[in-house]
């Protein structure tokens, strides 16, 4: 568990740093950047939000994109609530730490006791690390000024790519990704800032519908 936690901690610390740099580089203040890491504490949503705001996007559509990326955490919470069996009054506190990494570490533990320890230790460690490295990244970006000259504007999309790539296991995931890229890029010039990403999210239900039809058609043939 310690080695798992260390590996996860290093990765999270680095992306926290990248987030601080990206956020300040995109024009948010240091205070806004740190507020995001303290209060939102789910990396992909934070990156999405500062990316959308960088273009001078509407705050509501920018927040909507970040929100939809955060929806997956509800499903993590569902798994975790079965595994951890937390008392009701602890849940509002624990909820803030329900993210990709804490879920991964918790799921890997064999007993309820180990899961509770795993969740708490990972949650606390990552929360502290994420916020510290965000602050450092933000300070760093303020110090060097033109973050684009250092190529740091590539850190945001590269983070998305690093999160996305391992998910592209089957044809369905790849089809969803391709359709979303096409929709997102084609609609970008014609729709208001932030909206194309939300429309691109429809790639998920669209591909599911097509997939469902194919499966049903195959079942008919088999009969």
């Amino acid at each position: 568990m310690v080695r798992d936690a260390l590996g996860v901690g290093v990765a999270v610390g680095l992306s926290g740093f990248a987030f601080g740099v990206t956020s300040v580089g995109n024009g948010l203040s240091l205070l806004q950047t740190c507020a995001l890491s303290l209060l939102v504490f789910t990396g992909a949503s934070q990156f999405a939000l500062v990316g959308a705001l960088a273009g001078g996007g509407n705050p509501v559509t920018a927040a909507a994109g970040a929100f939809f990326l955060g929806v997956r955490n509800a499903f993590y919470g569902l798994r975790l609530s079965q595994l951890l069996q937390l008392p009701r009054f602890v849940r509002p506190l624990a909820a803030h730490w329900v993210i990709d990494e804490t879920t991964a570490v918790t799921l890997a533990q064999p007993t309820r006791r180990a899961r509770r320890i795993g969740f708490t230790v990972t949650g606390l460690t990552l929360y502290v690390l994420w916020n510290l490295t965000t602050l450092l990244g933000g300070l760093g970006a303020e110090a060097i000024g033109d973050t684009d000259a250092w190529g740091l504007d590539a850190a945001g999309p590269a983070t998305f790519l690093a999160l996305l790539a391992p998910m592209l296991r089957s044809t369905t995931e790849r089809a969803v990704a391709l359709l979303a890229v096409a929709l997102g890029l084609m609609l970008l010039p014609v729709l208001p800032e932030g909206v194309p990403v939300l429309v691109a999210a429809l790639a998920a239900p669209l591909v599911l519908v097509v997939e469902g039809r194919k499966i049903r058609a195959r079942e008919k043939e088999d009969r």
Partner: protein
Amino acid sequence: MNIWLAVALTAVGCYAVKLLGLLVPAGVLERPLVQRLAALLPVALLAALTAQQTFAEGQALVLDAKAAGLAAAGVAFLLRAPFLLIIGAAVVVTAGVRALG
């Protein structure tokens, strides 16, 4: 002010979905179709965001040094590089291409 509004909306929204998962009875979200959709939604969003943040400048589509950086990140992923190296490759290559251009 607009940025603070976005920060507040995101904080409330993201916390609410996290809490929702811990509070709702298991049956509600456990239907296979809902689970499948929840797994695919981040794929669609991340793909669209990667593409936009690489190829868009405001509302215009552009091909600049970032594209080379992201290609480098892709290669790093295929070579099974750890998270840090993937991001590092993108940053270094983007900066390098800019310095040369």
